[in-house]
């Protein structure tokens, strides 16, 4: 049968096999969907809008008409013969690169000094004079710059071949703690050596290509981690890795993503991938293990022990990366099974250990990682927030992508909102969820436990009842169907609110538990560094109003954006970086929150808005009764 698929203004017709699900049909139309949970109907990220025809879902049949479109999960729906079936793909459900995942780290390195260096091989004028071997010839060249040098077999054979070639005039190496690791020989006329920084997230992989000599960033590229087809969170990846051949399969998948990105980077920069000679990889511990082909099993259960924290240096060839085969690949050390190289990178680029006083570093993702430095101890922990702030698992949640509502303000009888790209609203991203909770609470339309005042909302025409798992659930309308991108209203239900409250509670309780262990409170902090993409777009005051972050003066919060990628870049251009990584490894004290008595009570207390003990947010609540000082959303005003 023929099914019509629409996206934006475009339509494509696909011949579908009987029983084929809509996500497969979309993929055949060359518009693959964002099936994060592997098509199990769990993640809600492949939602489409059924425009016409009969469809069969998991439990029931559905009929859609243009006048009555229905939202449904593509992976759970099959079109039925007999009627012309048509569905539309919201931009938010497509698996494509998002402009917003890209590498925006707010910290730039003060000085750039490539860790990859090269020196001319001086062939002796008198061939019979010293030195006594080719490698020693190369060594003498390197020792002009480093105290010590190591030649692996690859470097030795490269130099053997290189010296035989008249054009091989240089030897190159990377430096780590004053020691040189010989790379190989290279023609002086070859392209400028390039470096690659890679941040492997559970969901997205972000890369940057730099010219090593100058530190100039030539291109950025990011894409979904192809491992998504094997589950959305680290725990499900570990489960997948435990199946026979699982590790190799997962390694192959992420390698595919990285290699594709490399190709894109090189095309857009007009450079050759063979010139990439130094790669620095960061990411959470499970992703780093899988990228290197190491089993992450130990991280899955008590005592959550990784195979290795300080990864050995290796050659790209061994990993099958599509860069210069002899390129050195380094992975930023992980601090524990749940605190990966991405946090080490965040901490390095933020200069955490150089700071005086007491500092928190918080990276909010599916896992909220928290580091607390008080000048002596670096306590660190991971708190499982779940994906609510990444837009997953909510009825209208979506990534921070075109059409996502990212800012909200309650205007007495409707929401005023801002969307990414100024498009019609298609869903809510994490920052909008935080705004919605804060605004509803302040307007008295939501109580401290997250229940909506449905009567009051109804009087303003902003209440709806949706069905969830067969039960009616109250929801507030953020954007009505007339205004929205897909003809279905953008809403936030009480179930969504409960999910978001769990996520914020996990993070807040993690922060408070670490502070408590150190015997201090938020007032004792000199500052809080917020890393990660979500933090970058968060309305900080609202984050405090709902009790996601502790109450702090706004000027004490530093937002650094993608510090993980920033830290990986630093690994390419700061000879002091590896020593700093090692220092972090030495001082890190991983804390298992479950073993802290205080955590559970704090988690339950933090489920309330802002908290069971609102006096902790007293200053903020007091100033809320005064006229607001923060600027209102700047663009598009829509009336509900």
């Amino acid at each position, binding site marked *: 049968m023929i099914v019509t698929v629409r996206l934006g203004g475009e339509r494509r017709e696909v011949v579908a096999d009987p029983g084929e699900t809509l996500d497969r049909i979309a993929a055949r139309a060359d518009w693959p969907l964002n099936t994060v949970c592997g098509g199990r109907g769990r993640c809600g990220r492949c939602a489409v809008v059924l425009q016409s025809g009969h469809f069969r879902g998991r439990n029931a049949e559905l009929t859609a008409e243009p006048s009555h479109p229905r939202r449904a999960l593509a992976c759970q729906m099959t079109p039925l013969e007999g009627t012309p079936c048509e569905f539309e793909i919201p931009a938010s459900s497509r698996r494509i690169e998002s402009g917003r995942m890209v590498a925006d780290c707010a910290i730039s390195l003060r000085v750039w000094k490539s860790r990859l260096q090269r020196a001319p091989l001086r062939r002796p004028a008198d061939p019979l004079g010293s030195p006594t071997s080719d490698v020693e010839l190369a060594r003498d060249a390197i020792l002009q710059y480093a105290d010590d040098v190591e030649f692996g077999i690859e470097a030795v054979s490269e130099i053997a071949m290189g010296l035989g070639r008249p054009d091989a005039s240089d030897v190159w190496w990377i430096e780590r703690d004053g020691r040189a690791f010989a790379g190989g020989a290279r023609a002086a006329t070859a392209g400028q050596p390039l470096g690659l920084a890679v941040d492997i997230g559970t969901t997205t992989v972000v890369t940057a290509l730099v010219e090593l000599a100058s530190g100039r960033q030539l291109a950025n590229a990011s894409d979904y981690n192809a491992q998504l087809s094997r*589950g959305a969170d680290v725990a499900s990846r570990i489960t997948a890795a435990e199946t026979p051949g699982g590790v190799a399969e997962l390694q192959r998948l992420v390698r595919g993503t990285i290699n594709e990105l490399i190709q894109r980077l090189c095309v857009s920069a007009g450079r050759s991938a063979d010139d990439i000679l130094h790669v620095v990889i960061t990411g959470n511990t499970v992703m780093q293990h899988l990228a290197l082909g190491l089993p992450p099993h130990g991280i*899955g*259960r008590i005592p959550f022990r990784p195979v290795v924290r300080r990864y050995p240096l290796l050659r790209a060839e061994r990993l099958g990366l599509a860069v210069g085969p002899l390129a050195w690949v380094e992975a930023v050390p992980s601090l524990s099974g749940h605190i990966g190289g991405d946090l080490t990178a965040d901490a390095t680029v933020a200069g955490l250990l150089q700071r005086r006083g007491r500092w928190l570093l918080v990276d909010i993702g599916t896992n909220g990682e928290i580091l607390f430095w008080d000048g002596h101890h670096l306590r660190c922990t991971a708190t499982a927030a779940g994906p609510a702030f990444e837009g997953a698992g909510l009825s209208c949640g979506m990534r921070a992508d075109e059409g996502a509502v990212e800012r909200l303000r309650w205007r007495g009888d409707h929401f005023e909102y801002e969307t990414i790209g100024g498009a019609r609203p298609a869903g809510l991203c994490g920052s909008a969820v935080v705004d919605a909770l804060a605004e509803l609470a302040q307007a008295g339309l939501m109580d401290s436990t997250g229940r909506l005042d449905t009567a009051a909302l109804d009087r303003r025409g902003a209440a709806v009842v949706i069905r969830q798992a067969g039960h009616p659930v109250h929801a507030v309308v953020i954007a009505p169907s007339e205004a929205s991108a897909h003809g279905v209203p953008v809403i936030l239900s009480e179930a969504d609110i*409960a999910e978001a409250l769990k996520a914020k509670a996990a993070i807040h309780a993690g922060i408070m538990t670490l502070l408590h262990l150190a015997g201090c409170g938020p007032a004792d902090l000199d500052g809080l560094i917020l890393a990660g993409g979500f933090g970058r777009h968060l309305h900080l005051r609202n984050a405090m109003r709902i009790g996601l972050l502790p109450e702090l003066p706004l000027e004490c919060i530093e937002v650094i954006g993608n510090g993980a990628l920033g830290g990986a870049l630093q690994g390419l251009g700061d000879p002091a970086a590896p020593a700093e990584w090692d220092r972090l490894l030495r001082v890190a004290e991983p804390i298992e929150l479950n073993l802290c008595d205080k955590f559970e009570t704090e988690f339950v207390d933090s489920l309330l808005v802002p908290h069971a003990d609102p006096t902790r947010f007293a200053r903020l609540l007091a100033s809320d009764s005064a006229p607001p000082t923060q600027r209102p959303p700047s663009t598009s005003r829509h009336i509900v």
Partner: protein
Amino acid sequence: MARHEALYAAIAGGNKGAVETILQQELATGRSPAELLTETMIPAMRDVGERYSRKEIFIPQMMIAARAMDAGLRILEPLLAKSGHEPRATICIGTVKGDLHDIGKNLVAMMLKGAGFHVIDLGTNVDVTKFEKAVHDGAQAVLMSALLTTTMPYMKTVADHFRGEKGVKIIIGGAPITQEYADEIGAHGYGEDAGAAVRVVERCLGLAG
């Protein structure tokens, strides 16, 4: 005795302070702890559990109600023990080996206590041996909780261990657990949430609700 409305409301609304004050006052005037528990507190908590199952309320409201109930039970438990109040049955509960998530498990344990069961709480990271010992000590049902997909398979290990041991019921739950999984490993029951946990224990042990 009729149900104590203020106490009922305090539990359902999660007002821990009020629960404590009311209980102290009532006990001082000589009210029977067993009656306060069975006529008011258990029905209040049961109602909370059911509203949670019907998605009328969500985790935050449920958790604070549970905490208020817990505070009340803390006051009543020693008095009940003294008065020889008979539990309906004995069960043991624990989060399986490898897993330390216990908030959901504690809630289930609390609901069961609230419903009149004697609960042996084995804590987290519980292996077969510990479950075995609890059964030896009289537990008629083994309740297991797991929140990680990596630790769920351990439930099968425990279920296999008790298979054939007559009378011991295996009941499982936790966010990643489904009825299908329960069937697959041969568990006798599965509960989606804390409200359902009480119902499934009652059903498995053949007790009227």
